[in-house]
């Protein structure tokens, strides 16, 4: 699980929320592009600075995005092709295509490419992919992405392969053919097949607990050394064949993860472009002070790379709270919120674009619309009249936030005050926030600030975790505690639709259907800023996700 304010991110793409300064923010919004003109050569050692103490290279326990750290060592059935000016595309990885569904969408077949091998030269077969997936069901290997677990037939009772039992719904028909039997039709299974658990693992891979640091590589790099809290070194996997891989370029000869780094210190090194930071980048966002410094330092230039609009930052309204049960009151809040003030508090234009929809940019199926007016500053008069219609006076609400969100919360507070709504801000530390909000019973808050970036770029991963009634409490992210059987049905229907165009239309409709009920106020699609040294090339942040693609970075 991750931070409530950054609920979706790869292991090493973690970092503090960017809090830039509004007055300076507009100066150098780099856009969601690569910082380099030409591709770099092969070779060299790339350093990736990380604030994390450890890394997991075990696909069963990893929540890493398909384009970050785990993708360097572990291939999956499918992969992502990211581009700065186009939605992220699903491409084949180990498989020859992105999966073939049966007519009813309940059976998906993948065929592996011929001649693929692990780092030790043994063959990557359908059985090794099956074993990798089965491991993700084991109780001692928990904590990873679980989207496949609720889809595979019999998955609810399966406890992993270590006791000799196998999951029949993952069928390794022969050396290269895998057939997945789902418990319901599911249209975006190709995307699910790009999540970590779909990486192959050989059966004789040693103790399950130590696989996180001693994985058997299928990607362009293998783990050469692992020192928790200090350094992880990846070296070239000589058995990796670039001609079979559309997602990775395998540029640097080796990659060093420098762990447990202080992001301010690293950012200073990168700004100064010190010799030991030239072939390096910082995995987490640039801290606020260094972001301002980098924007104003001509030496930095295009080494500061800002993503396009990404994760949805929102104000969730607790629909089970007595004060917010009436949709008219929730609609009034849509108009009362001052998104302009919120964005200024978050750092201005460089921190994001105004949001009006639930599905985030860069995801196929997204349709632009605006239900509650186009003015980012809101419409306080409209809000007042809606509250009057609802017969509500002296509305007083509790807004729960994590400590680093105080300025943003005050912007919300001031916006709502224009419509006569009193907001009390309650800052909590991250653990207390998790306990009170995603894992709580909902009695502790009326409003809450949240952020969401899906694990895969499908509308299902975008909407279901936030609005399906099964995702309320227990550490899940339906923070509005929104429960609407019609919406549950619509979500299920859209996710079950196999035809891509038909599914896209359904997702666009369900997006609007939910927002008409006003469970949350979309605030901004946040942008993330990253710094790299002058030797780093092909540092590309695609339309989705708002993180650099580690798999294609090279050195000049």
């Amino acid at each position, binding site marked *: *699980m991750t931070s409530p304010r950054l609920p979706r991110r790869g292991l090493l793409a973690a970092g503090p929320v960017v809090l830039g300064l509004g007055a300076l923010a507009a100066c150098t919004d780099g856009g969601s592009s690569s910082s380099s003109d030409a591709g770099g050569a092969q070779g060299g050692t790339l350093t990736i600075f990380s604030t*994390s*103490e*450890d890394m*997991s290279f*075990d696909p069963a*326990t990893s*929540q890493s995005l398909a384009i970050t750290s785990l993708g360097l060592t572990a291939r999956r059935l499918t992969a992502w092709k990211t581009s700065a000016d186009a939605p992220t595309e699903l491409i084949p990885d180990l498989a020859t295509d992105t999966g073939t569904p049966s007519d009813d969408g309940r059976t998906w077949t993948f065929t592996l490419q011929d001649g693929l091998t692990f780092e030790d030269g043994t063959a990557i077969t359908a059985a090794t992919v099956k074993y990798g997936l089965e491991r993700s069901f*084991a*109780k*001692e290997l*928990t*904590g*990873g*992405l*679980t*989207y496949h*677990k*609720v889809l595979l037939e019999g998955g*609810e009772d399966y*406890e*992993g392969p*270590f*006791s000799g039992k196998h999951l029949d719904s993952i069928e390794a028909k022969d050396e290269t053919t895998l057939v997945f039997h789902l418990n319901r039709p599911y249209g975006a299974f190709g995307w699910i097949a790009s999540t970590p658990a779909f990486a192959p693992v050989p059966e004789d891979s040693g103790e399950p*607990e*130590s696989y*996180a*640091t001693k994985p058997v590589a299928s990607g362009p790099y293998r783990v050469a050394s692992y*020192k*928790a*809290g*200090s350094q992880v070194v990846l070296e070239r996997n000589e058995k990796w064949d670039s001609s079979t891989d559309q997602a990775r370029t395998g540029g640097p000869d080796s990659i060093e993860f*420098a*762990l*447990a*780094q*202080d992001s*301010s*210190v690293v950012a*200073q*090194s990168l700004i*100064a472009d*010190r010799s030991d930071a030239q072939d390096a980048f910082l995995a987490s966002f640039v801290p606020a002070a260094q972001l301002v410094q980098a924007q104003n330092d001509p030496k930095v230039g295009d080494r500061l790379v800002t993503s396009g609009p990404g994760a949805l930052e929102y104000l969730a309204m607790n629909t089970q709270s007595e004060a917010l049960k009436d949709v008219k009151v929730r609609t009034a809040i849509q108009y009362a919120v001052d998104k302009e003030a919120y964005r200024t508090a978050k750092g201005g234009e460089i921190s994001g674009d105004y949001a009006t929809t639930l599905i985030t940019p860069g995801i196929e199926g997204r349709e632009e619309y605006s239900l509650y007016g186009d003015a980012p500053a809101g419409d306080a008069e409209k809000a007042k009249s809606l509250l009057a219609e609802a017969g509500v006076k002296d509305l007083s609400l509790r807004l729960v936030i994590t400590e680093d969100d105080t300025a943003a919360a005050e912007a919300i507070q001031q916006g709502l005050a224009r419509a006569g709504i009193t907001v009390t801000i309650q800052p909590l530390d*991250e*653990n*207390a926030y*998790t*306990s*009170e909000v*995603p*894992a709580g019973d909902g009695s502790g808050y009326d409003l809450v600030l949240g952020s969401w970036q899906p*694990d895969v770029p499908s509308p299902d991963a975008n909407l279901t*975790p936030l609005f399906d009634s099964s*995702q309320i409490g*227990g*550490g*899940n992210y339906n923070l509005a505690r929104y429960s609407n059987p019609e919406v549950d049905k619509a979500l299920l229907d859209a996710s079950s639709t196999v035809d891509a165009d038909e599914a896209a239309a359904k997702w666009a409709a369900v997006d609007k259907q939910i927002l008409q009920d006003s469970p949350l106020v979309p605030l901004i699609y946040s942008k993330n800023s990253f710094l790299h040294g002058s030797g780093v090339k092909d540092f590309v942040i695609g339309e989705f996700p708002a993180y650099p693609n580690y798999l294609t970075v090279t050195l000049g």
Partner: protein
Amino acid sequence: MIPALQRVARSLGVLLVVLALTYAIFYLAPIDPALRMCGKPCSPEDLEAARGFMGFDRPWWAQLGSFLAALVVGRTYGSGDVLVHCAAPCLGYSFQYHQDVTTLIGERFPVTVSVAIGAVVLQSALGIAAGALAARRQGGILDRVVTAVSVISASAPAFVVGLLAVVVVALRLGLLPSGGYENLADGPGPWALHLILPWATLAFLNGAVYARLVRSSMIEQLGLDYARTARAAGLPERRIDRYALRNLALPLTTLVALDLGALLGGTVITERIFGLPGLGALLLDATSTADLPVIVGTTFVGSLLIVLANLAADLARPLLDRRLAVGGRRPATPTTQETSS
């Protein structure tokens, strides 16, 4: 021997209380380590299973009992076919690192020891020297400088001092590495080079206490009868200083022991700023990721070290001052013995 045994027993008691409090506090705090291990999305069944597997579904005192037992006999997590073993002395098992806490702490301890010992040596040497010099030149420029610097260093936040040291010394001037750790086994040169900045930062932050203590106590000592008598007898000032400092041995030993114990428990901010993989960095990470076994394990080891350092100082007191030894000779006044020795 009996008082020594009593002290050891008291120390054990303190450790148990600290441990019980740690468990109670974290049990009451809104932390559910199982949430981290449940995966995304997390079903209620998976969450319950994760709690059960990790042993967090039991009351805090039962968990404390298991912790204590595991120190002696080890522990096994899970049931049936799915088992995770943690050999004695087991300080718990981190499901985030997939490693037992004893190993995690063992791997990081050399780093923390390197930081702590160097820092304590530097801070006590610099602090005592500065305090003694300031006391000798009371009211002079040196005294004023020492007093001013010690006020600044005692009140400066560690984060600011550390960051400033990195930015100026490492990044701007390029004199030293900005962070990281090299094993002593790989050569003392790189090891020391990477530790100079952390040592200096800690010495600057903590040395002030020594300087102030030594300065005020020295001024007091130098005004006492024995010092005046010695001066009247024609003893050189340097020798009188030595007597005065010897009389400070007891409070300084206690201070050094406590500092050493505290630093061995991990220096959270310094380790983070300088990228040192020590116990402090481990604890900081565990706190943010709700890794309860690591929090409890490092807290326990940290308290153990402070208690041990305290105990060592306690047991060393009679060696430093024979008047405190059981059955030892009790002179009429402390100064008589000092001046006649």
